[in-house]
């Protein structure tokens, strides 16, 4: 049993409280992603689990044991850092075996474990190299190996892919997900990249200003955002959010709420139909300001006749049908209009 539970956790740096009353339960074997913008305290949360930061209030339980005053080493947790944090004076072999040797593991066992992990991660030919002689991807694999070799109760990842190029990031994303699925080790993964969050986690916790705003499966967060922050943060391109009156004044809503200044509506770019006769909530006509063609899809930047700018995601062939400056009609797919309270930002539906 290696679940992680925060109960009413608080963290202050001096007089500034960065985490307010955090409650989070990571189930045994679960892969949870903490996602949010810079400064939302997601890394601080991770560091509190690791024992690198002390909580100023509340409780933390690891595997049912109260861990508030346990040292980092006592928690039997492994962490992978954004900067890899490999020991620069040690070879890959020494980096991998560092933790085992500190625990006075027998030399034959250490050698066996190093060989096992190196084999799993394709590091066999790199064992005698120093970190300075490794590429970013190789260094990240060594960091993963160092985390895996001790068979810890939980893995913590602090934006581990941020320093990698786009292609390698996609590859490593898959490798980390596969590794976690094979080992079934409780994992907490911090990122500000919502694509990583959506593709990797069993559940996602969206954080902002030291609070968890919503926690749930990736599809839940995408389909049923609890507030405007989550609605805007999850999904790429981001959800169009605006006062209902601005978007729908000329329209005849066939679904969704009544118009009103107190309501904010949100619609995802992929849920807006262009020049379609299909059923849905009519937004009205708009002018195409710009077309970004990505090949497999295109993003239309349009401005409605009431001056509201919207982002529309459509198929990559759209430029054959629609030119920049063209007038198009827009419709929201049935059931895809999200409504939020204007002042609190909370979901109304």
């Amino acid at each position, binding site marked *: 049993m290696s679940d992680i539970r925060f109960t009413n956790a608080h963290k202050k740096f001096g007089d500034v409280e960065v985490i307010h009353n955090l409650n989070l339960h990571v189930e045994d074997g679960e892969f949870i992603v903490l996602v949010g913008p810079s400064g939302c305290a997601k890394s601080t949360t991770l560091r509190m689990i*690791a*024992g*690198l930061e002390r909580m100023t209030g509340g409780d933390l339980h690891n595997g049912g044991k109260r861990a508030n005053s346990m*040292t*980092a*080493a006592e928690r039997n*947790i*492994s*962490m992978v*850092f*954004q*900067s*890899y*944090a*490999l*020991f*620069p*004076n040690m070879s890959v072999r020494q980096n991998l075996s*560092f*933790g085992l040797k*500190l*625990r006075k593991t027998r030399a034959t066992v250490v050698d066996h474990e190093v060989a096992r992990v190196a084999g799993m991660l394709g590091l066999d030919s790199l064992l005698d190299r120093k*970190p*300075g002689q490794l590429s970013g991807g190789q260094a990240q694999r060594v960091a993963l190996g*160092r985390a895996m070799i*001790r068979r810890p109760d939980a893995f913590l990842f602090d934006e581990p892919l941020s320093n990698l190029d786009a292609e390698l990031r996609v590859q490593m994303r898959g490798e980390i997900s596969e590794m976690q699925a094979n080992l079934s080790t409780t994992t907490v993964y911090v990122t500000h990249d919502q694509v990583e969050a959506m593709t990797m986690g069993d559940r996602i916790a969206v954080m902002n200003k030291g609070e968890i705003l919503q926690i749930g499966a990736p599809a839940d967060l995408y389909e049923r955002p609890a507030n405007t922050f989550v609605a805007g943060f999850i999904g790429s391109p981001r959800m169009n959010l605006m006062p209902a009156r601005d978007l729908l004044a000329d329209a005849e809503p066939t679904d969704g709420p009544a118009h009103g200044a107190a309501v904010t509506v949100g619609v995802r770019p992929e849920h807006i139909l262009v020049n379609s006769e299909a059923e849905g909530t009519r937004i009205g006509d708009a002018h195409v300001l710009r077309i970004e063609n990505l090949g497999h899809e295109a993003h239309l930047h349009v401005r409605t006749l009431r001056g509201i700018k919207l982002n529309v995601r459509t198929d990559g062939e759209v430029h054959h049908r629609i030119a920049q400056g063209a007038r198009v009609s827009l419709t929201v797919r049935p059931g895809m209009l999200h409504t939020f309270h204007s002042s609190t930002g909370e979901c109304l539906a």
Partner: protein
Amino acid sequence: MRRGGRLREQFSLGWACIFTGAMVLFSLFPVYWVLATSLKTRRDGLANPPLWIFDPTAANYLKLWTHETFKYTFLNSVIVTGSGVLLSLALAIPTAYAIVRMKVRGRSLVGIWLILAYMLPEFLFVLPMFSLYQWTGLYDTHVGLALMYQVHVLPLSIWLLSSFFREINPAIDEAARIEGASHLHILARIYIPCTLPGMAATAILNAIWIWNELAIALGLTFSKAQTVTLGVTGFRGYAALDWGAMTGASIIAIIPMLLFALVAQKHIVRGLTFGAVKG
């Protein structure tokens, strides 16, 4: 246009060479003069106007070879420098680590104090310490000198080592802590090996300073622990100066540090320009 540019470039290069050459001559002239005097006979050494061409003699060096007091002071300097450098590193390494990586209260005050202590003239400490040293038995001992030198070399060492330690990504010691390493282990297994050029530079700078120090040695030793700088001045008698022996002793006193600096030059430059440690 291109030719004019090349001429201007050669002209500036010529000036730079002349200027650099003049600076080198200016700074090396005293050393040359001491060396030349040490190789002259007593009469040649005192000639007025000075002799530029002379028959060199090794007599002064042969005299020093059998001069027991000078040999003794030389050995004292080796002992005091060695122990002073080791002591400074032993104290400065953990202190610098604590300042850089541990949440020690008043870290900024320590930083200010280090700079102040380094800037204070060393003789300032000698007079008040004189009676304390006599009372504790540290007067005229190697240990007493090595301890007193820490007043000067320790702030410099802590300051230098702190700057080297700051170059290490803090995530590296966090990673080590999670793996189960203690602070002492992190220091010994990661920080010291990663900053070896910096350690060498610090040790060399400390050694040079201790070896060349005169004021503290003059105030806190009498005979047993006298260092080589005092040994050199010992050739100045009540009524006469043995210029030949004194200059010869100076050259011998310079040689260890000169060799040290030449051998370790690479480390000093690398240490003092110690860059980011690739994590």
